[in-house]
Structures are given as C-alpha cells and as structure tokens.
C-alpha cells in the first residue's frame, strides 16, 4: 500500500548492493531474535479501518458538555483545519532548511506576534507541548534567573498543572510551595506571609482554576517584585478579549494552554503551550524561536534563531531539553486568530461572558448558587443540593456532562461543581441544562 518496490525492482536493488538475499544485509542482527512472532492482528483495508474507527468513536457520543477546567469547547471555523492539514504544512519537518521552509517560518513569526499581542508581552517562542509544561518550564526559568529555589503556587492553579510542575522541578533544586486559598482567590496577606529571600516566583492563574478572576493581580505583581521574585501568569487565551492580559499587570513570564484557539478537545491533546516573557528573559526562554532577517538578495526572510540556548547546540547546558514542539497546533491557532480578528476576538469573549452569566443566574434559580462572589469570565463553581457525583452520573445517562466535581481535587469542596459555558451554548441549551440539574437534584 505504501511500499512502491516491485519484486523485479527489489531484485535489481539487491544486485546493485551486491548481495544475493535480503538477509545478507542483516548480518549484525542476532539471528535467534529475528522476526519474532507477534500476538497482533493482521492488517485492515482503509475501508475496514474507517468503519472500525467510526464504531469506536460512536461509543463515546455525547449530546452536550459543560465541562471546562483547562480544556474548553469552542467553535472552530472550518477553514482552520482545512488549511492547517494541507500536506505542505502537515508533512513538513522542523524548518531547519529555511530556504525550503518559509511557509512554516513565516507562520511561526506571525504566531509569536499574535501571542505577544494577546499577552501584551515583549517576546514569545514558537510554542511548547501544552499549557502545563509551559508553566513548568516558566518555573525553571524563574529559578535559574533569580538563583532562588522556591516557587509559590496557590491552590487556585489547576491541580494537574501543579503535578506537571512538580515532575519537572523534582530534581532541579527548586520546589513548589503551596499557598492555601480558602476564599477561592489569592489574597495579598497570604502571599506576604509566604514571600521570602528564597522566592523565585509567584505563579498566578487568571482566570483561576475555579473560574474566578484574581482580584489582586496588580498588587501581587508589586509584592513579588519588591521581594526580588518574578511573576509568572498562566491564563486562558479566550478570556483575554475582555480580561487584563499578563503584561498589563507586570508579569515577567506569561504562559497558557492555547487549546481554546482553534484546537479540538481530542481527549487532552495535541494542544499548544503558549510561552512569552519580557526582553530581559529572552536568552533564558526555552524552545524554538523564529526571527526576521534578510536573504542574500536583501529580501525579508525568516529563520530559526538564538539557537545557542537549545539542546542540539548546548547539549547538557541547554536552557531546556525541548526539541519538537507543537508547530501544527500553533499554525492552527495562527489561522484561527487571523480569522477571528481584532474585533471578533473581543466579541467572542463578550459572548462567553454573557452566556456564562446567564447560566449562573439560571442555575442559581434552580438551586445551584455560585460558591464564590468574585468576578468570573465563562466558568464558575456552584454548590449542589445533592452530591456533585450524583448529578454528573444522572446527567451522563442523558449524555450530558454537567461539569467537574471539585471534591476529587479538594476534600473541603465535596459539594461543589465547576461549570463552564462558552459561546456554543444557546439560551435554550442553558435553560434545558437548568431543568436537567433541577431534576437530578430531586
């Protein structure tokens, strides 16, 4: 199917090599281990494969979802993937030969510009694996830059992000110091108590894991800076059509899970980690970067640059071990943002805000009041009259995902459900969701 050689050609090739049998080429391989018997099925035709995959997919068919918590269901315009999956993009390698890769390089340059604009930061890289590893790499940069070893991580940061940070930091000499947040947001007084000469950075997620906008971002920024540490802000790109971007409140490093920018949920990936920082940190930034330059004819062109930070040059002294990133996902995000445009991006954020606020009001009326009074964007926690697990189970039977029970992550929040409402929900969807919840609570 994918192998073009005819039997005749194979013979010609072996003759040209100067061996009589193919196995003569395998002299170095241990004979007794050659061609093991595999307990695996034989091949399917494309037709059978499609049928098999469609059957597997249909098992998980779902009507509606109100689940967010770091991965968000947004509308993806058709042209995004119709372009991104063009073979010239999808089947190209990392653009090491710049003259034959200007398409990829220019799109990354546009991506870096878009990320800088979204975040209001000076420089951005060509992408990281996902939001969680971007946050982890940001913590490593902060520790290296400050020469300090403590990263303050409030409980309002996504717990799964925290676990990835812990894995990355495990042997780096730096450690996570957890900051409790009983009020659902990071309080200035609490941070004051935790700041010290070891503080390399404070990581703030805004909007936070509970959907709340962190009310004190500016104050937090001033506090951590006056203590000689950095502010790392983790954010949700779609919210930035409305909500203050990290650069506006003085973040030194901004990271995000970029999935909401045109990428399907796809059970967790491939997503795209966004990473941006101030000029001061440029040469400590991990990952690939594309820069503008001139070619031999004086024409504008783009090239991978500042590679002296990277593993293939510096080996064990590199700023990070990252090599492959998520280029095609970054391209999809670039196409998505180019389609949505300046005004559309603000409209989209406003639409999310309005739908979620309407939903919060409907849910409160049906006996599911909000837990926190803080401002929010498109996600909020509600208190459930019966156990959230019961609610989720009952709605699952109707193929509706009610949200995320917070008890799985926080023992003292066993009665709380995290609910997300994006632009894709209509008023009647939301009203019906209210009905289903009320029914399940009965």
């Amino acid at each position, binding site marked *: 199917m994918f192998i073009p050689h005819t039997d005749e050609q194979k013979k010609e090739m072996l003759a040209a090599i100067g061996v009589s049998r193919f196995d003569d080429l395998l002299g170095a391989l241990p004979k007794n281990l050659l061609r093991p018997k595999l307990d695996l099925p034989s091949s399917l035709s494309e037709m059978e*494969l499609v049928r098999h995959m469609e059957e597997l997919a249909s098992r998980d068919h779902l009507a509606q*979802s109100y689940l967010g918590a770091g991965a968000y269901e947004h509308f993806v315009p058709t042209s995004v993937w119709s*372009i991104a999956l063009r073979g010239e993009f999808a089947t190209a390698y990392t653009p090491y030969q710049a003259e034959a890769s200007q398409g990829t390089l220019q799109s990354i*340059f546009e991506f*870096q510009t878009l990320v800088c604009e979204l975040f209001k930061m000076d420089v951005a890289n060509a992408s990281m694996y996902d939001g969680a590893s971007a946050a982890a790499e940001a913590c490593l940069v902060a520790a290296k830059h400050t020469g300090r070893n403590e990263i303050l991580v409030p409980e309002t940061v996504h717990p799964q992000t925290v676990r990835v940070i812990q894995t990355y930091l495990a042997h780096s000499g730096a450690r996570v110091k957890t900051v409790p947040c009983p009020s659902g947001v990071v309080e200035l007084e609490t941070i004051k108590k935790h700041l010290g000469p070891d503080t390399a950075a404070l990581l703030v997620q805004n909007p936070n894991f509970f959907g709340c906008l962190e009310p004190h971002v500016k104050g937090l920024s001033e506090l951590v800076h006056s203590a000689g540490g950095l502010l790392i802000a983790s954010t949700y790109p779609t919210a930035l059509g409305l909500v*203050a971007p990290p650069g506006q409140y003085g973040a030194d490093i901004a990271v995000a899970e970029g999935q909401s920018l045109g990428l399907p949920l796809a059970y967790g990936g491939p997503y795209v980690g966004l990473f941006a920082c101030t000029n001061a940190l440029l040469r400590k930034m991990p990952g690939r970067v594309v820069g503008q330059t001139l070619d031999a004819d004086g024409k504008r062109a783009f090239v991978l640059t500042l590679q002296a930070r990277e593993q293939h040059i510096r080996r064990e002294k590199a700023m990070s071990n990252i090599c492959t990133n998520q280029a095609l996902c970054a391209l999809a995000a670039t196409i998505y*943002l180019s389609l949505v445009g300046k005004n559309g991006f603000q409209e989209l954020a406003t639409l999310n805000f309005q739908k979620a606020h309407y939903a919060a009001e409907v849910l409160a009326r049906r006996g599911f009041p909000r837990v926190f009074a803080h401002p929010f964007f498109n996600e909020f926690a509600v208190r459930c009259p019966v156990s959230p697990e019961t609610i989720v189970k009952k709605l699952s039977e109707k193929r509706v995902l009610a949200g995320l029970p917070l008890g799985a992550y926080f023992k003292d929040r066993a009665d709380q459900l995290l609910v997300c409402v994006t*632009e894709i929900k209509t008023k009647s969807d939301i009203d019906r969701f209210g009905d289903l919840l009320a029914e399940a609570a009965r």
Partner: protein
Amino acid sequence: MSGEKVVEPLSFEKSAPGRKGIPWPVCDVPTVPVDKNIPAGLLRESPALLPELSEPQVVRHFTRLSHLNFSIDTNFYPLGSCTMKHNPKVNDRIVQIPDFAGLHPLRPHELSQGILEILFEVERWLSQLCGMDAFSLQPSAGAQGELTGILVARAYHEHRGENRPVVLIPDSAHGTNPASVALAGLTAVTVKSTPDGQVDLDDLYQKLNKEVAMVMMTIPSTLGLFEPRIQEIAKKIHEAGALLYMDGANLNALVGLVRPGDLGVDVLHVNLHKTFATPHGGGGPGAGPVGVKKALEPFLPVPRVALENGVYRRKFDRAHSIGRVHGFQGNVGVLIRAYAYMRLQGAEGFREISENAILAANYLKAKLTPLFPKMPLGACMHEVVVSGEGAFGPGVRTLDVAKRLLDHGYYAPTIYFPLIVPEALMIEPTENESKETLDAFVETVRAIIAESKSDPDKVKTAPHTTPVRRLDEVRAAREPRLRYRP
C-alpha cells in the same frame, strides 16, 4: 515552491480596520453590563492587535505560505534520523470524526470507553512490537519521552536505595539525550566512538561503575549502524546494576524485525511521528511514548489505562509514579493516528516496513559509494551517513551541496550530524520512496558533485530557485526581530 519567487506579506500588513473573517451569532441571552460585573482594573485596557481580514484573504494567505514549503507530500525529503515517511490521508479523516475531536479529557470513564480502548490497544501494540511490558503514552515528543524515561530509571534506583547520579551517553547521540539527563538532575558522561562509528567498548566498560544509573544508546546508532555486540553490552550494563535506555528515534529500522526488549533494553521511547507515520507538522505535534520492563512499571506517569471486568478506566493510584508530564493524557490525536496506522499495517506490515527501509538505504549507499571517497564499509540499516570530505570541488562544503539539492527539488539530508563524522550527510530514504526517485536523487548528487568542481561558486551560493536565497543568520541572532511591529 521551487522556481517561484513569491513574497507573501505578513497577515498584519494586509489588515484593514473593520474587516472580519468569521461572524459570531447574535447574543440570545439577556445581557448584563460587563463593567458592573468586572472591576475596571481587571479588564483589558487596549485590544490585542489581531489582523483584520476576510475569510478568503486568510485562506489565500496561508495557502500561499504553504507553497513556500517543501514537504513529504510534494518532495523527496531524505532527512536522516527523522523518518520522513508517508502520512496516510485516512488519518486526517479519522481524527476529525466529531466524536473523537469533541472528547473532553476530564470525561468520566463511562463516557470514554471508545477512546480508552484505543489507548489501551496502542499500549499493547507498542509493547508487542518493542518487546516491553508496559508503556506510558503521556510524553508529547521524543525529548519529553527521554525525560520521562530517565525520571523513571532514577526513581527505580532510588526505590532500591541506590544513588546513581551518572548517565553514560555515546558522543554520536542526539543533543536531547544530555539535555534531558541534565533536566532530570543527573550528570551526563560522554562515551567515545571508534573510528567506524560504533561505541568504544573499552571506554564504555571503563566508565561503567556503581555511579551509573543508565546507558543511553540510539539503536541503530545515529550512523545508521546496528551494534552487533548489543546483547553483550546489555549484559555488562545489567551486571553493573545499571539500565539500558534505547533512544527509539531509529526504530523504523527494527520494527517487526527485532524487538528492543529482546536485546536487553530496559527503557525506551518511541517517536510516533517517525516510525508510526504521524505528521511532523513542521515541528510537532509528535508523541514520545515510553516503554519499560516489568520492574520499572510502578514508576511510570499517571494516569494509566487499565481494563477491569470489561470496563476501561484511568488509574491514578500508583504510589511510586513519577507523576504527570502532561496536563492531561498526552497528544491523544497523535495516538489515534498511530493506532490507525498500526491497524492498517497489521503484524506483517511492520516487518515489510523495516525491510524495505533497510533495502532502500543500502541501495542508496551502493549507488553513492563511487561518489564519496570516505564511504564506510559494510551494510547500513535504514539510513546511510556519508562524509563529504574529499568529495566536492575546491572550497565546497556539505552545507553548499545540501543547499544546491534544494534547487533540484530535494529537501536536504540531515547535515553535520552525527558530530563525529566530518562534513556529514545523513540520508534516510524510508520504505516509501520508489527506486525511480532514489535513482534520480543519486543522479542529482552526481551532477552537483561535478558542478562543484566545474563551477564551485554556483554551488557555494546555492540555493538559487527557492523562494528566498541563503539567509543572514548572524543578523537574525545579533538583532533579534521576533515579532512584527507596525
């Protein structure tokens, strides 16, 4: 595209106020004032300056950009160590099935049975093909797989009460190997190679002691050679209490033919974007699953997928796990593509893949031998590494020849890697390229070598027909311009 001298402006340069590429629906819920619900200080002060373009403008912009790329779909892409093989089109269709694309990663397992079966099966296929006992599918790429594998090995030794701070790495290894070791808080120590490109065993055995956690080897090596003494080496490593890690970047030479686990490998990572034909995407997304032998399984990242009484579940209760390396379950879309590729190939298909990859590389080697005076002897595996030393005209370097290949519509081979081969060209044809293509490529190399002697300047100033000519990389690094500014 070769031959076209196109300049495509940046999207930002085509922007005009008020245009939009996608309209959003009218808000159908009662609205509340934004400024009454969010204090001014928490709102955005000025909008992000995204380009303002119509849909047709966006489509044309990116389609024209795509024309500036070489790709597998359009060109022979003999990039050594990268396994630029055909990416089946049916996989584009499969990953876009709405019930796959719409799967939220935090769904309860009752609503994820189809996808969990796929993940379970990918793990089983990889375990069978590699001769390992378990896999974690979480790492997003080869380098993250390496980090995961090293952390797992470190946790294994620590659990046994042993402190082993050193990892031995041959000097022919990928740069990610030592970088990943450093990130895992261990020390990378280099092992020398012999002049024929194999690991210097005297040096290896001399450095193998109680301090060594692991030896990382690329099998076949980055020179495209299979180490015939690998079983003996594995035995020595195990006797020293260390583990054998295999960088699986070159698995395409072995899959279906020999199983790494049978050779004595304890930990390996597999690049699904190489051997399992998922698209490279211009630099990702990839996937770098990590396989281990039984003794190391308890240390793999969580969650793992398990089948219990006919129901698939995500399991988190692993006391010795190194934790998470991905925010969710890994690059699942890539894993779905790999699964589809596995089913298309079946058990038999993989053997044919490795055999035909080896056949094509050796055929290229035979045809190129008369052209390169320093061609190594003996059979190679799936890729051939040649030294450009003494092959080209006065002052012409491997870089120049690589650039000249672009003029002829071939992407350049990997060059100057492995570091131990002077003026290296690393060529990997994969199982997909026809004899006709390979013959035409050899003739082009022959013509370029002749040209390098008759008209060296033409080669030294190549490429001439690509959308841009050779770039000023020094300028890019000295005065970094990393974003558009109006």
